[in-house]
C-alpha cells in the first residue's frame, strides 16, 4: 500500500497521499530538512534533489512519480566515511553561503552539472545553475564550481 522509495541509500515505504510533492515527504515524513521549501512552483530550486541521478525540483513532483527510484538529498552526498563531497568542500573553501537557505539546492545542482559535464565551462554554469539566491552569492558559486573541478586558475579570478 505504501510507496517504495530509496533515499540516500535507505529504503522507505511511504504512507502518504500519492499526490504529495516529494519535498514534503522528504522534509516531514523522513525528517531530512536540508532540502528546502522556497516557492512551491519549481521556480527557485531550493528543493533540488537527485532522482536517479537527475537534478529534480522536489516541490513539483508527486511522491507517486518517484516510486522505486533512487533519491539523493544534500544529506546523502558526502562519502560514507563522512568526507565531504568535493563540491561541499569547494563551497567552504570559497566561502559561498550567506544565509545558506538556498545552498543545499545550489550544491545539488552543481553536483549534477559536474556529473554531466565533467569540466563545466562558464557557459555550462550559466545555463545550468538556475536556482535563485537572494543573498547574491552567484559569483562565488561560479568560482566554487570551477574550484571543485580543479579549474583553480579560473576560480581565482575576481575577488568577491
Amino acid at each position, binding site marked *: 500500500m505504501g510507496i517504495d522509495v530509496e533515499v540516500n541509500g535507505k529504503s522507505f515505504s511511504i504512507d502518504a497521499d500519492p499526490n504529495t510533492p516529494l519535498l514534503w515527504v522528504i522534509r516531514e515524513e523522513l525528517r531530512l*530538512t536540508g532540502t*528546502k521549501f522556497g516557492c512551491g512552483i519549481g521556480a527557485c530550486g531550493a528543493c533540488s534533489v537527485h532522482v536517479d541521478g537527475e537534478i529534480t525540483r522536489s516541490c513539483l513532483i508527486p511522491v507517486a512519480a518517484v516510486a522505486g527510484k533512487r533519491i539523493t538529498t544534500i*544529506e546523502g552526498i558526502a562519502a560514507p566515511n563522512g568526507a*565531504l563531497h568535493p563540491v561541499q568542500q569547494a563551497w567552504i573553501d570559497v*566561502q559561498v553561503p550567506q544565509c*545558506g537557505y538556498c545552498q543545499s539546492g545550489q550544491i545539488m545542482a552543481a553536483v549534477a552539472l559536474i556529473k554531466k559535464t565533467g569540466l563545466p565551462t562558464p557557459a555550462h554554469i550559466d545555463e545550468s545553475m538556475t*536556482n535563485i539566491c537572494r*543573498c547574491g552569492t552567484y559569483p562565488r558559486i561560479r568560482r566554487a564550481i570551477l574550484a571543485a573541478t580543479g579549474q583553480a586558475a579560473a576560480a581565482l579570478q575576481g575577488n*568577491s
Partner: protein
Amino acid sequence: MGVKRRAFLIGGAALIGGGLFAVSWSERAATRRAAKQITKDKAGVFQTWIRIAEDDTVTIFSPHVDFGQGSVTGLAQMAADELDAEWSKIVVESAPVMVAFANAPLAKGFGGELLPFSVPPFLNGIVGSAFAMVARNIPLQVTGGSSSIRATGQMGMRVAGAAARNALITTAAKRFSVPESELTTANSRVIHAKSGRALRYGELAAEAADATISGEPKFKDPKDYRLIGRPIPRLDIPGKVNGSAQFGMDVQLPDLRVATIMAAPVRGGKLDGVDPAAALAIKGVEKVIELDNSVAVLAKGYWQALTGLRALSPKFSDGGHGALSSASIAAAQAAKIQTDKPDNKSGHGDVPAALATSGVRLVEAHYAVPFIHHAMMEPFALTAHFKDGKLDLWGGVQDPLHSRQVAAEAANISTDQVTFHPMMMGGAFGRRLPGFCEIIGQVVQIAKQTPYPVKLIWSREEEVKHGCYRPQATANLKAALDKNGRIAGWTTDYAQSEDATREIRFVYDVPAYALRHYKFATNQHDGPWRSVNSNQNGFYSESFMDELALAAAEDPYQFRRKHLHPGSRHLAVLDDVAKRSGWSTPLTTGRGRGMALVESFNSIVAHVIEASVGDDGRPRAHKVWSTVDCGRVVNPDGAAAQIMGGIIMALSSCVDEAITLEKGAVVQSNFHDYRLLKLAEAPDVDVHFLESNASMGGLGEPGVPPTAPALANAIFAATGTRIRQLPFRNQAKA
C-alpha cells in the same frame, strides 16, 4: 571608540563576575537570572557575552542573529582578539532571549550616530517613541541597520574581551605574586616570561570572573591584532553545506502540526466568512481557523494544510481600499508634492534664493520607484506551543527579544511566560523585524486553538502578496547650475510613507541643499528593505548628478570631483573606483559605464558598472567595480561578500522587480511574476576597501544604494536613454 567606565559599574563597584554588560541600564534581578542562564559549573562569565570553561573553551554569546552577514564570526573575532584567546577554542551561541541580554551597545551606537531624539530609521514601526525610550526601556536584541560589528562589536565585544583579559591578568598576578606589568597573554594563557610560568585561561576563569578591575579595560594596539582584519572562515558555513543548519522552517517537535494561512487580498480588509467543509474533507486537515483578517488551515503536514486552504472560498472585505492602484498612488504622490507643504525637511543654505539667482540654469527631473519585496528565500515559518499557561516560540526573527514581547501581548500573558528559541534565518533584509511580522500574532492565535505545537508556514504566494515592501515613492529633483557649471542649489522633494530626512547623507559640497518629505501612506505595509531609504534616494540623487553633469557638459566623474572636498574620504573612494575601472578608457560598442557614490550606514561606497542593453530591452551589468571606505575591516572576505551580495540584490531589484497594486491588491504572487536575478545575469564584482581610521561603518546595506543609479547612468552612456523609473526593464533600446 568611547568606552564608558559606567558600563562596568553597579552602585560604584567595578565588577566583572557575572557582570553583565547590560547592567548599567537593566534591573539587577534580571542580570542575575541571565548570569545563571549562561553560567555552567566552574565556568567564569565575563560581561554579557563571554564564558570561559575549565578546558579553555570560550563561548561568546551573540545578541545578534546571523542571516548571512557573517557578523557572528566577526563579533567572535573581535572578542577573541582582545581576549587573546586561541581561535580554535572559540564557540558562538545565541544569547538567551532575556532582557539582560538586550543590546545596550547597539542603543548606545545609535545614540552616538543619530540625533538624540530620533529613532534609528530601520526601527521605525518597532518603536513609536523617542530614542531615549529605546535606550532605557525597549529591550533591543535587533539585528539591522548594518550595526552588528560597528556597534555591538566595537562597543560590546571588544570591551568584553579586553575586560575579561584584564581580569585574567589580575588573577594570575595574585597567584604568581608578581606585578601585573610583568604578565603577557597569548593563545589563551597568561604568561610570566621572567619565571617561565604560565596559566591557562581555564585555570583562572572561575576566580577571574569575581575579580575586581579598576578603570577602563586596556585595549590592544591595532598593530597587535591577530584576528581582526583577517579573512577567517565563517563559523556557520560548514552547517550550511551539509543540510544540518536549522532554520525556522526546519523545527521538528513531537506531535507537531502545520498550518498555513491566507489573509485578505486587499490589505485592510477583513474575513467576512468561510465555509470550512471543503478543507475538512481533506485527509489530514484538522481545523479551519478564522482570524480577524485571515483564514488558516491546521493539518498534519504542510501539503494537507495547503490543499485544504486552496479548497476554501473565503469572503473578504476590501477595507475601503478597492480603488487603489500603483498608478493612482503615483499620481496622488506627484500631486501632493505640487500642492502640499512638506511634513519634514533637512538641509542647509537658502535653496529658494539659490534657485532664483539670475543667470543660473535650472535642471529638473521626476523620479519614481515601485514597492519591492524582500523575497527572502525562506518564507515565514514560526512555531508556537501553548502549555500550562506558558508559550514557547521557535523561529528566525531580527529581534527575538522584541518578538517575544509581541507574542506575549498577542497571547495576553506576561512576557516572562514566553520563551523564544531563535533559529537561523533564510534571509531577512528588514522583513523579519517584529513590527512587521504579522506571523507572530497569527501563530499565537492559531496555537491557542490546539494542544499541539504548531508551525505556521506562509506559502510563497502569501509572502509575495503580504510583504512589508520598500515604499513606492515619487521624487522631484531640482537644481541650479551657476555660470561655472557648479551646483548652486539643490532640492529633492519626495513623497512616500516614511520620513528619511535625517537618514540621508548628501555627500556633495553645494551652497544650498534641501531634502523635503511629503508624507503619503497607502494601505500597504512598507518599511526597511536592505539599505532602507538610502536605496531610493541614492537612485534619485546619483542619477540626477549625471543629469547635471550632462547639462554642464562635463564628464560625470569630473563633475562629481568638482563637488567633493580635496583630501576627503569621498573623493578618495571615487578616485579609486574610477582608476580601477579604467573610467576613461575606450569601451566595446554598445556598452556604457556609469558611476555612483553614496554614503549610508556610515560607509562610503562608489560603484562603476559596465553595462549594455539587450535586444530584448533587458539591461545587463557585465562588470561592477566597487570601492568602500567603512573605516577598519574586521573580516575582509566577509566584507567583500556583503558588498557583492548587496550589489547583486540591488541589480535584481532595479532591473526587474516591482510589486504593483490593482483594485487595492498586490498583483504578483510568486517567482514567475516577481522575477529575481539568476546566476547567468550576475556580473563579476570586484570590491576594494580603502581602510581608514574613521569610525566603523556598516557593510550589509551600503553596497545597495549606488547600484541602481550606476546602472541607470551606464544605460544612458550606452543608449542615450535616461531612465527615471524603476524597474529598468523594457525602458531602453540597444
